[in-house]
């Protein structure tokens, strides 16, 4: 297990030092946000190098592990070396403001909530070490194909229930850690799932600035529902999608206009947002819905700040990974039939204009909408949605508007998929609704707690600063 943990944290560390060396900074700059971005990039980029090794018949032998470790160590060391002269400046951080009783209470409540929430995956792991249904039927099964068959992985294209057309960030990440461990540890996908959950939490809190109490309240609200902690236990691909969605959106936050007036900061934020969005597409097909929705947000941001050409940086960030996804979809898995797609274009159009179908889908979704979150968290989704929407309509909620618009576009896209699918609706909606909402839940919480506040001038290099 130690070897698997080393395999997980090597690329994350390399990404951390790489971000600092290349001076790639999120729009909302904080160490916690940068750490979250490093987690996303470390896991995402190492899945791509693993895919390259698989394609070159180098996976999963000892040579792969040594080569992979050397690669990430070398990149991390180079990054650390490049930013060594500036690391001293971090020690000059200004003191944080004193905390009041309410601040401490919010932090204590967060500790209680997170302890309870992260005990859920531990409890569930002890009774279901292989994860939930989709984990062993799809994601961990594909990881086994990569690990056991190497370049013969494509055999799973014949397994229709394994969603053969979905991209493979999650299975490759699991198989990579198994290669490090030298065995198929069930703890490896469980550890990864925990990191996905912790990263989503970190990015929301870091973006809202952990020097402020709202970040701790947001962390509590995000982690509390059973839907969240149950999905951390699931070992499926929905949580990494939600992690990448919220991290990409965090790069595009509009709460600090200075970022967008600084060309270097704006470009690095757009580059990271594009890269993270493309990794969401590399994780699951739903990532494509996010990519399309966030492209509109990026266009709006670029035009609003009079830097239309800066969109090129977002495209440059997304293009390399998207090229791999296109190759994967159009060449490697071209024969895989879409599981959820419409049978024909005519039938899809027919469904779109059928009032009975919309009525049926809304009828199926309504009770799930109310009960989403778990036994003691009913109505959490409507309340948070209403809160985010209400806040976005006020002047102090400006910074959450873009995030909310992307979330709305994604939910409309998912609803559209329900409308045009040829699958049996009752089972489809009942088995996917909770997970699809979970993909946008961290972004929704981010939007709902995005209350505009004056910047703290005393925190230039601490958790909330960095300039």
């Amino acid at each position, binding site marked *: 297990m130690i070897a698997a943990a080393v395999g997980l944290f090597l690329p994350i560390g390399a990404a951390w030092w790489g971000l600092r060396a290349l001076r790639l900074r999120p729009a909302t700059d904080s160490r916690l946000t940068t750490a979250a971005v490093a987690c996303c990039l470390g896991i995402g980029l190492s899945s791509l190098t693993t895919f390259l090794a698989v394609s070159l018949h180098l996976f999963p032998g000892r040579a792969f592990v040594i080569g992979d470790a050397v690669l990430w160590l070398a990149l991390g060391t180079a990054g650390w070396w490049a930013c060594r002269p500036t690391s001293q400046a971090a020690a000059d951080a200004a003191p944080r403001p004193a905390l009041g009783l309410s601040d401490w*209470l919010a932090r204590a409540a*967060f500790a209680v909530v997170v302890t309870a929430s992260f005990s*859920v995956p531990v409890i569930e792991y002890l009774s279901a070490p292989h994860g939930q249904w989709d984990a062993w039927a799809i994601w961990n099964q594909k990881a086994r194909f990569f690990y*056991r068959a190497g370049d013969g992985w494509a055999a799973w294209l014949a397994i229709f229930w394994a969603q053969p057309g979905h991209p493979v960030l999650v299975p490759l990440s699991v198989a990579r850690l198994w290669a490090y461990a030298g065995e198929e540890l069930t703890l490896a996908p469980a550890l990864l799932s925990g990191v996905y959950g912790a990263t989503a939490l970190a990015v929301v809190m870091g973006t809202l600035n952990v020097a402020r109490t709202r970040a701790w309240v947001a962390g509590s609200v995000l982690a509390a529902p*059973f839907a969240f902690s149950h999905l951390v236990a699931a070992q499926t691909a929905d949580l990494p999608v939600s992690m990448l969605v919220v991290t990409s959106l965090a790069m595009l936050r509009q709460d600090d206009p200075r970022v967008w007036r600084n060309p270097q900061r704006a470009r690095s934020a757009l580059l990271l947002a594009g890269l993270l969005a493309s990794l969401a597409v590399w994780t699951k097909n739903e990532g494509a819905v996010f990519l399309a929705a966030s492209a509109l947000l990026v266009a709006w941001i670029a035009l609003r700040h009079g830097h239309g050409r800066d969109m090129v940086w977002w495209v440059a960030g997304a293009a390399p990974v998207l090229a791999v996804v296109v190759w994967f979809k159009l060449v490697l898995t071209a024969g895989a039939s879409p599981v959820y797609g419409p049978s024909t274009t005519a039938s899809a159009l027919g469904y779109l204009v059928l009032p009975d179908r919309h009525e049926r889908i809304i009828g199926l979704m309504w009770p799930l909408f109310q009960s989403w979150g778990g036994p003691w968290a009913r109505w959490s989704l409507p309340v948070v949605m209403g809160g985010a929407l209400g806040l976005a309509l006020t002047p102090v909620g400006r910074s959450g508007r873009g995030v909310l618009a992307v979330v709305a576009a994604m939910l409309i896209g998912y609803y559209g998929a329900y409308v045009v699918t040829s699958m049996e609706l009752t089972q489809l909606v009942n088995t996917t609704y909770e997970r699809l909402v979970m993909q946008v839940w961290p972004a929704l919480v981010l939007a709902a707690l995005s209350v505009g506040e004056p910047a703290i001038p005393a925190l230039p290099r601490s958790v909330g600063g960095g300039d």
Partner: protein
Amino acid sequence: MVGRVQQGLAVLAVVWAIIAAFGAVRGARAQPPDPMAQLEAEFNKLARDLPPAGEVGYLERYEDAGAEDAVRAHYAAQYALVPRVVVSRVGHEFMIVAHGMPRPGHDPRLDGYFLVSVTPEDHRVYRRLVP
């Protein structure tokens, strides 16, 4: 005034979060036991009598083949026996016949096959001679 409203909402949100988090722990403890680890271990025992890769057949349950337990058994066999592809079709050289899947007495779908091995849990591997 606005600050007090925000503080009040924050208190409500945190109290709700604590209640919901403990509800989540309760929900986790109430989850039914997962049979996958056991099923996987059972089907693993068949691996030594199957080819190392390629397609092998899987006999669907003679009735109500779409029931959750029947589907779960098929998927579990696939999960355990990767990198083989376990297809629910008769006619392959090797057939996996899980416990409770064949028709009691005589199942004509197994005509031409002979028994290769059987596990203590009554999962079987059948084979037919190919020209």
